[in-house]
């Protein structure tokens, strides 16, 4: 060290945290201290003898103070302020670099207010950053920048916080993580980077991005950390809103079964949203158009190509429906797709909608409408037929019962009509409007007839043993008419008014669809020698005709006490109508 010679001065020179270079009159470096060597990233020996131009962009005469750009390593540069002190009359100059910094936060600053009017200060203000110099040994932190604007603390308050005050201002949920990151970076000599919520003076929190570099002494002990803290609250908020917005879009696509896609006409790549990928069964975000075009069923290829061509060439709306075979599971999916062409970017943007369920609903609706039409037609047909049956009953009564009293004919006819009407009542109450439970119907019908004859008293016992099975209207009505004739016969002749007796009915259906109906009463029974086949009464003619003709069944009148008849027929005479 020229002109010093004193060990004390030398020690102070070397220990100074300021970077000091001694330059000769030719602006060559003839000495430098440890801090300068560290800043410039080269050994003292390597730098001594170097012209100042080699280590900075300095040109011409050096001023009393100003800025210079220092090259540190191959890529790093620092814009720094300096001041100079002439050394006696030797022409040597002591260059004291008061500040060594760059905008990326690799900063070393002197204690004290060193940023007056320098570009770093401007950068700090413009970027909303605070710079700090954390003395690791004392725990003091010197802050610079628009402290009050960012934190609400005055400069004095903020600088008095120290490391513990800084830790207190970190959001409790972020605190331990952030302190751990800081300590780790110091221990491992890595750049410290952390994002956390920092408490303002008013208690509100804002997100900061905090980065720092630790400076170590020659023994590797940490001395200081120089860093910057940037307000990223708006960015974080925007990021959070973006994340939320994307989550909403994903949710909307999931709920609505929709997706969007973008086809780049130049690269022939298709970008598919999560919803679109889900619908198509695609794994990646980007697909070649050739891969995507494999998904629709082949019969739609020509239509889809034509729709795309007319969208691009003729600006015709792209609004198509087609089916795809999903790539993941092979499921057939109905798709509704709409798209627009953006000639500026030369892309086609579209949305797809999985309309499988609505298509199915549409089909169900059509099917339901068809079913209703059939039901309505069936209703008209049945009504017409029933009118015909009633007319036939009345006509037959007129032919076969000339001696009957009108009131009796009317009562018998009303009973037959009621037997038919009860089927319709049961049908109305049934689930599918097509079948009724035959045993249930017969049971109700018998009670209805007893009521009609005013015989619903204890003298007539009912003994039913009927299996539960459904039956179509075409079986139920003839069965009802047969039961009506049988019960009427019992009440008129077998167990006339004033007599007691039991009506027994057994009903069963075999697995092959053979229905067996056994009817009996324990009443007076037919007179000896009665010929069931030749009896010309309307009741027996009705039973025989319905059983043998309409139901294509077998009828057998049994002898013994009272009246007993067995009827068997197949239930497949009539197909299910609806």
């Amino acid at each position: 060290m020229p002109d010093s010679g004193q060990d004390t001065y030398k020690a102070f020179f070397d220990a100074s945290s300021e970077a000091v270079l001694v330059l000769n009159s030719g602006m060559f470096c003839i000495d430098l201290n440890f801090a300068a060597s560290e800043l410039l990233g080269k050994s003292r020996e390597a730098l001594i003898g170097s012209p100042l131009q080699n280590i900075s962009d300095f040109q011409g005469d050096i001023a009393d103070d100003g800025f210079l750009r220092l090259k540190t390593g191959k890529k790093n540069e620092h814009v720094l302020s300096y001041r100079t002190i002439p050394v006696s009359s030797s022409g040597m100059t002591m260059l004291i670099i008061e500040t060594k910094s760059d905008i990326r936060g690799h900063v070393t600053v002197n204690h004290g207010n060193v940023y007056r009017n320098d570009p770093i200060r401007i950068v700090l203000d413009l970027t909303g950053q605070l710079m700090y110099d954390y003395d690791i040994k004392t725990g003091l932190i010197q802050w610079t920048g628009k402290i009050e604007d960012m934190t609400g603390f005055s400069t004095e308050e903020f600088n008095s916080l120290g490391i513990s005050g800084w830790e207190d201002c970190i959001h409790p949920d972020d605190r331990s993580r952030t302190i751990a990151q800081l300590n780790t970076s110091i221990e491992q000599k890595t750049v410290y980077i952390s994002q956390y919520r920092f408490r303002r003076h008013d208690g509100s929190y804002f997100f900061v991005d905090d980065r720092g570099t630790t400076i170590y002494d020659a023994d590797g002990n940490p001395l200081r950390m120089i860093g910057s803290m940037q307000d990223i609250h708006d960015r974080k908020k925007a990021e959070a809103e973006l994340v939320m917005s994307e989550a909403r879009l994903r949710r909307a696509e999931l709920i609505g079964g929709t997706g969007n896609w973008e086809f780049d006409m130049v690269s022939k790549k298709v970008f598919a949203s999560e919803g679109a990928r889900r619908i198509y069964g695609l794994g990646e975000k980007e697909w070649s158009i050739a891969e995507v075009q494999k998904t629709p069923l082949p019969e739609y290829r020509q239509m889809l190509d034509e729709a795309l061509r007319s969208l691009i060439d003729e600006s015709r709306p792209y609004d198509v429906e087609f089916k795809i075979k999903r790539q993941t599971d092979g499921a057939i999916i109905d798709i509704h797709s709409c798209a627009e062409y953006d000639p500026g970017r030369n892309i086609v943007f579209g949305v797809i909608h999985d309309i499988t369920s609505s298509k199915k609903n549409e089909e169900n609706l059509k099917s339901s409408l068809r079913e209703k039409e059939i039901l309505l037609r069936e209703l008209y047909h049945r009504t017409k037929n029933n009118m015909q049956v009633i007319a036939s009953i009345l006509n037959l009564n007129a032919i076969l019962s000339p001696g009957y009293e009108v009131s009796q004919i009317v009562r018998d006819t009303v009973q037959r009509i009621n037997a038919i009407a009860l089927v319709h009542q049961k049908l109305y109450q049934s689930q599918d409007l097509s079948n009724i439970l035959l045993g249930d119907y017969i049971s109700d019908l018998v009670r209805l007839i007893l009521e009609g004859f005013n015989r619903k008293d204890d003298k007539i016992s009912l003994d039913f043993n009927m299996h539960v099975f459904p039956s179509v209207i075409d079986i139920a009505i003839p069965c009802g008419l047969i039961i009506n004739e049988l019960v009427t016969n019992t009440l008129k002749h077998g167990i006339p008014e004033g007599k007691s007796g039991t009506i027994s009915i057994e009903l069963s259906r075999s697995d092959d669809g053979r229905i067996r109906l056994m009817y009996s009463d324990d009443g007076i029974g037919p007179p000896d020698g009665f010929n069931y086949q030749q009896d010309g009464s309307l009741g027996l003619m009705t039973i025989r005709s319905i059983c043998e003709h309409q139901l294509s069944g077998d009828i057998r009148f049994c002898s013994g006490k009272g009246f007993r008849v067995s009827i068997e027929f197949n239930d497949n005479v009539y197909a299910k109508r609806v």
Partner: protein
Amino acid sequence: MEKQIKLMLVEDEAMTALYIKMMLEKRGYLVSIFSTGEKAVDSAKAEPPDLIIMDIHLAGEIDGIEAARRIIEDAYIPVIFATGYQEKTYVDSDKSIKPLAYVTKPIDINKIISIITDYFKKKCN
């Protein structure tokens, strides 16, 4: 002895069939009843009737129109259809059948008798 005219009545409603049969038999016609189209076709092929009264809705697999078509594919037999308005259109759509007449339900027996009588009168002349 004058040959008795044979009528085939294809009707699956027993009471209606019974009534029509009784009324026609009173007029001297020989009436056989069938409740399904299949039975009617088999019988008509074996022993063709002189005239058929055919309901359209029948028990069994085939309806009255199909039964009539099968019966007359060998030899023409006049068919009176018991039908509604919509069914008339349905019958007319099959040009091969050429029905003798349509009657609607509830059936006016006198109208049927009149159609039958006129037909056989014309046939005799």
